């Protein structure tokens, strides 16, 4: 596989789209995400043949409105219930969180279904079966198991859920499958799990020691050790993600077509470092620019500000400027994140993947229909990440 997109073009698309979000109160996000997907899909090629994304922004907007229609009554009902129940408990919002959590699993399945059915390759549509509820049930049960086994069940959970997703995914008439097993993932990453547990236990122990004893000079050392533990944990994360990515890609199947990944952890580290340093650089530049501008404005309008009493146009204007500055900073960080972790990761994964037996898709015959957009709407409304 190969990725042919130009970084500059993608960056321009991101920046323009992010700026448009300011005057449109964020509504432009549907158009931006559609453009991003079109760019990524169209530039992803297997042996010179590119994918195509056929979804539209209008569909996403409608999905958001549907989610609104589903969630608004839910919220209002909950608010009324909350008023009745909260006589006993402050912040008795646990049931709502549970509902949202189940909806998030459901929505993520439906969002995948939407995206699959908007993906076209060689004039044939991908599509998915299933409604999402059985998947949500499985996901909840696996989450419980993972929690109860302190994360030991996680590889099996991931394998089982991905197998469910892939077996319900079709390329035309060819059924997908997932060959990865929990055991194979566990074999590749078990030591990270052990290290993580040990680190967690060590950290807890340290925290207890810190809380009970005051050790004078040693206290600083202990704090340092705790900080180091957290840092090491964070440093291991890209490695874990890289192992997972490779295992994931290696397991993908469509009929006789298989995928193999040579994805390296180093790529992940590189992207993370780029993201961290570019974000720091951006914030620094932004801070300096804002400081300089503020200094300038204060100089020019000093008398005007002093003369103005109470709520004047100047103070309102200043408030709006501050809000816009804040938005720009936030959107800027979003652009960097999408550029490195969205596009960068996508391109790296695509480039490191090899497709085997591609000729066997010749037999695929068109099947399946475009799926509804509720999942994407839920994902947007509930702010959970379903990927690009």
């Amino acid at each position, binding site marked *: 596989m190969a990725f042919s997109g130009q970084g500059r073009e993608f960056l321009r698309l991101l920046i323009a789209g992010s700026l448009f979000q300011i005057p449109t109160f964020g509504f432009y996000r549907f158009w931006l995400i559609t453009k991003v997907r079109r760019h990524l899909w169209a530039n992803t090629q297997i042996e010179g043949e590119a994918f195509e994304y056929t979804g539209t922004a209008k569909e996403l907007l409608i999905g958001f409105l549907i989610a609104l229609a589903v969630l608004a009554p839910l919220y209002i009902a909950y608010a009324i219930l*909350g008023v009745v129940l909260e006589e006993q408990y402050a912040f008795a919002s646990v049931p709502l969180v549970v509902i949202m959590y189940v909806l998030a699993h459901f929505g993520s399945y439906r969002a995948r279904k939407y995206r699959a059915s908007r993906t076209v390759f060689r004039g044939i549509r991908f599509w998915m079966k299933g409604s999402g509820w059985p998947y949500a049930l499985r996901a909840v049960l696996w989450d419980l198991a993972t929690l109860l086994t302190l994360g030991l069940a996680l590889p099996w959970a991931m394998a089982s859920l991905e197998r469910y997703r892939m077996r319900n995914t079709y390329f035309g008439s060819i059924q997908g499958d997932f060959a990865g097993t929990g055991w194979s993932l566990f074999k590749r990453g078990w030591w990270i799990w052990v290290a993580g547990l040990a680190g967690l236990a060590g950290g807890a122990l340290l925290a207890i020691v810190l809380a009970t004893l005051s050790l004078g000079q040693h206290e600083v050392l202990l704090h340092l050790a705790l900080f180091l533990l957290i840092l090491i944990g964070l440093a291991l994360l890209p490695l874990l993600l890289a192992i997972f990515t490779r295992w994931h890609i290696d397991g993908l199947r469509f009929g006789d077509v298989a995928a193999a990944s040579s994805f390296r952890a180093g790529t992940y580290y590189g992207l993370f470092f780029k993201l961290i340093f570019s974000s720091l650089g951006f914030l620094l530049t932004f801070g300096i620019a804002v400081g300089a501008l503020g200094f300038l404005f204060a100089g020019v309008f000093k008398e005007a500000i002093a003369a103005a009493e109470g709520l004047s146009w100047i103070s309102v204007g200043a408030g709006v400027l501050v809000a816009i500055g804040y938005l720009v900073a936030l959107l800027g960080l979003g652009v960097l994140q999408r550029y490195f972790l969205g596009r960068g990761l996508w391109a790296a994964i695509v480039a490191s993947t090899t497709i085997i037996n591609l000729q066997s898709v010749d037999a695929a015959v068109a099947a399946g229909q475009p799926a509804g957009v509720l999942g994407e709407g839920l994902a947007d409304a509930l702010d959970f990440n379903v990927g690009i």
Partner: protein
Amino acid sequence: MANAVFYDGESARRRAVSLIITASVIDIHEGSEWIASWPAGEVRQREAPDGILRLTRSDASSLARLDVADAELQATIRLNCRHLDDSDRRERTGRILVWSVAAAISILLCVFLLLPILAERLTPLVPISYERRLGTAVDNQVRAIFKGNICEEPRGLAALRSLVARLQKARPGGPAVDVAVLDSGVPNAIALPGGRIYLFRALLDKAESVDEIAGVLAHEMGHVAHRDGLRKMIQAGGTSYLLGLLFGDVTGGGAIVFVSRYLVDSAHSREAETAADDFAGRTMVALGRPAHAVALLLRRIEGDKEEDGNDFRIPAFLSTHPVTDQRLKALEKQVPSQPGEPLLTQEEWRALKEICKTT
């Protein structure tokens, strides 16, 4: 000669085809066999990697695709097919902008024009029992905000109860209230929907006589009697929910927390304050006590503010209250015909002031 790739949308087979392009139609042949003819007006372009022109027909549900890599052929197609780029998929940025702004304006109009009217009309319709429930919900949030530090020194509590009882007796048929002192450094007092009143410790510290505190309590009882808390809550809840919608927070999870904060931090309307002052004035006159004591307390707090500099917020019940001077004048007009006995004994007053001291 094959110079393009055709996918018929029915199978994934890749078909090398040759094109014959005229001004009105693109004819597609595989070898010598004719496959399809696409009218030039119906040919549309889709996204593709650089260097490849990907064509389809305007019928959006069709997945038939024609990939043209040859530059010369691409130029010919562009020349003959005039409608490559117009489809319903083309984005009209202006329209998106206009409708977003329209949505924002309509929500803002709702917030500033409709909600106050709604709150005004809705408030009398809410049964007292329901208001009390709402009040309890808000009360829990307020306690969470202030870490629930309620002052309960027994003798102080007894003094507070007797003060509240006297105030209530002065206005028979007045609202049922439940007063508590919150251990907070901000000089403030708030009335929640349903009759709970919080007196903040700093206000007690600043007070120099019982009449001042009695005036504040009577003022807050005025708010309870007029159901100002409920009105404000409907308004703030609606506002936060509508604004949340605009910015994509559908669940409105932030709404209740926001409302609680808003009740604490912000003021009632000027009319509501004047009405509450009036209520307080009548109560104090009925007890034969000077009504303007509360204004003295407010003025003292304001004076302290100016000495301290502006770095701490003016409490809400001062900020948009009618200016202290005006209130003082309005209250001074309410003079009791004959002075009544003090509301608390010296001893009780001292106990009330020390209600937050724990042994």
